[in-house]
């Protein structure tokens, strides 16, 4: 006889769960934070110096702005030239020398001398080259979002040079039209003005890429921004393509990695998002943030949005939206009301 074993089991609910919890948070000494870049575009160049502020789960979580004032900041190239960043207040420092401009291939290093005597420096980094953007292509997509269900997703195509290691970063912004009922253009006029506002949408995601896997090949359809469709109007998009250094690429990867924690087993260990600005006397004191030496290439596209304008679904959505009364700037702020030049 063959024994046969059957085990039946009923499980009444299997529920993993996620709850919000309160936890004690340590307070640590403030650390220097730098945010800024030096490019091959025309000056001025700006950096911002602040300190980290305490973090608390139950307290007001807007980082208290602890600005660094009175610091002496200067940037030197490899040929003995240098430029000073002047304290503009509010932690902002800006160059005023309009002749000092970044050149691809040149090494640059930054020095920050704080009023307490601490001196922070970056190692010289060469400004990398960047290939031009070949094209920007829009595509109408439907997003899982009630407020902005229809968007144009813009992707770029460029050709990676085979002769060098390249690290890319992209940012972009787009102008999209939002409507109101408008106002008569003049007293007694029939024509309506101020009913079309060109509002700006900027990319928020960190978008970096290394050519390690595709060296020498085209980079096709790299998504850079999504711009919502609010009205049956064209959209205007500008994409900035940056050539960044390997260290800067690693910084962005770390930044991205540290911000995308979900609590799963795939999470990497938490780490401070430190960059290239280091205390010259204490190498363990590394500033948060990065001072980037980067080259930029830009490209614009005017998207007539024909697909959206001919889509009955988009038309239905646009018509279902409440249209604010009066001058659209009352609702959408101080934005352009005429088609911007340059596209």
């Amino acid at each position: 006889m063959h024994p046969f074993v059957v085990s039946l089991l009923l499980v009444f609910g299997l529920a993993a769960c996620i709850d919000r919890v309160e936890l004690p948070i340590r307070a640590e000494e403030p650390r220097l934070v730098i945010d800024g870049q030096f490019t091959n575009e025309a000056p001025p160049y700006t950096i911002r110096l602040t300190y980290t502020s305490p973090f608390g789960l139950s307290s007001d979580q807007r980082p208290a702005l602890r600005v660094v004032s009175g610091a002496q900041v200067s940037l030197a190239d490899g040929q003995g030239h240098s430029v000073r960043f002047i304290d503009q207040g509010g932690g902002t420092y800006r160059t005023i020398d309009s002749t000092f401009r970044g050149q691809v291939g040149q090494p640059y290093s930054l020095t920050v001398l704080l009023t307490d005597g601490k001196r922070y420096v970056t190692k010289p980094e060469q400004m990398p080259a960047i290939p031009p953007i070949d094209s920007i292509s829009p595509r109408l997509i439907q997003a899982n979002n009630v407020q902005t269900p229809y968007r144009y997703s813009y992707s770029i195509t460029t050709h990676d040079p085979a002769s060098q290691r390249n690290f890319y970063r992209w940012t972009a912004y787009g102008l999209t039209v939002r409507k109101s009922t408008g106002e008569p253009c003049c007293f007694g006029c029939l024509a309506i003005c101020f009913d079309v506002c060109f509002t700006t949408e900027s990319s928020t995601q960190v978008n970096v890429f290394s050519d390690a896997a595709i060296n020498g090949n085209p980079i096709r359809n790299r998504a850079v921004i999504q711009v919502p469709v609010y009205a049956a109007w064209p959209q205007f998009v500008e994409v900035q393509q940056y050539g960044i250094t390997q260290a800067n690429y690693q910084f962005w990867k770390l930044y991205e990695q540290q911000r995308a924690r979900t609590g799963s087993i795939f999470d990497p260990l938490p780490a401070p998002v430190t960059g290239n600005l280091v205390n010259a006397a204490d190498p363990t004191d590394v500033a948060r943030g990065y001072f980037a030496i980067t080259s930029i290439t830009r490209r614009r596209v005017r998207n007539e949005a024909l697909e959206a304008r001919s889509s009955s679904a988009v038309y239905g959505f646009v018509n279902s939206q409440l249209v604010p009364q009066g001058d659209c700037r009352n609702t959408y702020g101080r934005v352009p009301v005429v088609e911007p030049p340059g596209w």
Partner: protein
Amino acid sequence: MTLRLPLFSLILLFSFSRAAYAQQKLRLSVLVQDGVTKKPIAGASLFVAETHAGAQADTAGLIRLDHAPGLLTVYVSAVGYLRRRESLTLNRNLNVQFFLQPRSTYLDEVDVTAQREDKNIRNVQMGQIQLSMPDLKRMPVVLGEPDILKALALQAGVTTAGEGAGGFNVRGGRADQNLVLLDGAPLFNTNHLLGFYTNVNPDMVQDVSLSKGTFSAQYGGRISSLLQMSTRNGNNDAWRMSSGLSPVSARFLVDGPIFKKLTLLAGGRVAFPNYLLRAFPVASVANSRAFFFDGNLKLTYAPSDRSTVSLAGYRSQDTFKFPGDTLYGWQSTVGTARWSYLIQPNLQLNLTALYSGYHLNVDGITPGLTFRFQSFIEQRESKVDVFYTLNHKHKIQVGTNAILFRIQTGEANPTGENSSVNPRRIEPEQAREMGAYVNTEWELTPRISFQAGLRYTVYAYLGPRTVYNYLANSPVSPETISDSVRYGRGQTVQTYGGLEPRLALRVQLAKMTSLKASAGRTRQYVNLISNTTAITPLDFWKLSDRYVPPQVADQVSVGLFQNLRNNAIELSIEGYYKRLKNQIEYRFGADLILNPALERVLLQAAGRAYGVEFGISKNTGRLTGQANYTYARSLMAVQTPFDELRINGGRYYPSYIDRPHTLNVQARWALPHNWTFSTNFVYYTGVPATYPDGQYLYGAEPVQDYSRRNADRIPNYHRLDVAFSKDTRFNKNQRHYGIWTLGIYNLYAHKNPYSIYFVRTNQRTEAYRLSVFGTLIPSIAYTIYF
């Protein structure tokens, strides 16, 4: 009166036993063999009911006992076999042979005392855990799937990274530091379903033992622990088949004789876990799909009483698909061939050849970027072991082994058309490890025995390989390369090696009390590279090379063992201190995948771990169980000459498996009418974590700062499980019956944290606790046997 008489005679016997020893002793020699394979059963034990005398079999299955003459009732038992009771008349030196019948899994309700009751006192080894497979199947388990590693995690000194996390940690060691042997072949991965289950089917396993401390010099290659699992042999009476169904898997098992001397055992498990994943609140898991199976095959051929040949194979496979973009697959394959030959009754030879491989593939299915990523580790090993028993007090074992490792840390190739991914391949690594050992176990006096061993290994990292040289006195980085050297095929790139002494000592202080001490050194040449806290499928193995020296551990431990009430109660205290060298740590933001120069992101850390383990267990009576409490620490320090590479300024900090307090309680209570109540209680300190301790604006985005690694702890874990089971049998011989089990896992529905993480929504960052089992999980199981 009826009560007093046997008691009286027992006292009499006890009082006169010393006198009897002095008068005359006869030699009883018992050869214990497997009833199926006729193979000697090492470690079998003999117990004389009348005098409580006992002895244990050597590696050749031979038990020798000097005993006063008389009519004796002897019990012979061994793990995985049915106990045998015989009456013997000892009136001259006696040689007898006993065949023990392997215990069939279908009869696992039959309780078998497989060990000597005072084994914990008499055995020279300490830090030993032996799992009873019948008990394993009666424990309250989640989702009705008995699991070997989950049962081990209830023992002192054994922890896991969290509920449902892969791998296990022994005494502050990392998960890759455990030598997990399945029929003598190492397993490089122990997980199904990202760690929810162990990938070895408990139905197939006869015996599980874990050494937490210093283990025999016969074994090496890992620095933390030795977990041995041996599969059952097929029976040679008749063909038997069984199958089973649980909420997660379907199982089958078949065994029987192919010819008279050739038996087969084959079994497998196939899982259907998708509906469990759907219940998960994290969308990325709920929309995931998974599948796994594992299978074992074992052929045993016993051409003569002296010779046994066995072939064992094992294969496990997992696939796990995250929604949208990635498909993971991992496979383990193990094959072992062994020939055991009994040259003389006291001299045994074992020849083993084995293969063990672990392969991972990741398929990227994002359009335009489709690829397949692969990594693997393969070990080919041959070994010779000779077991020699000089006399029943002195055994010697010598052996040698040779291993070839081959590792691919990563290779990515484009798949499909229009993929922009370029093929990238890291040059595979290969290395050779050779070892030789001698080990002796010697009972100097009845009170003092020791086990001493010496292992010597020599390791060579082999070409083809391009090795970068870096400037001295500066950190290893792409900027500090001075030159590179190309090594040809088979050329030695780097060698390591050394002695690994092992020593264990037992001093029996009283009849029921012993003091044990052990010390040893272990070396490890393979390293798991992982930048996450638990074992994940993306982890890969790497060999020790010029920049990654072998991991070395030195451990000393001391323990006091006391049995009470005729071995019914066992008490133990064990303390240990471990010093770890060349532990792998990672630079901040380390990019590990497809990195051709891993030395640029790895750091060497020093570690230390220490702890005290208290244990009590009650083995007889209606109420049985055990409780253990452990205080343990596990600390790390990255001390390099380069300030910028130090983590937490080079100071010692808690490692991510540091867990100071652990309490485990397990109890079983036999109730009337065949009811059994069993319960587990688990408490432990939360593991270290790193919470944000500062914030700032970068661009316009608020960013949290994590300035000190592992300076915080997730909340403590505690859980109570209960199970009632009812056996419908009226007597033990009944063949058709069922067992009802009503269980509740996590009875008081404590939301135990698996991890704490921080999410920013609407300009606020909130802390969230992820609980894998967020509530109580009741279950009803009915198992029917017919």
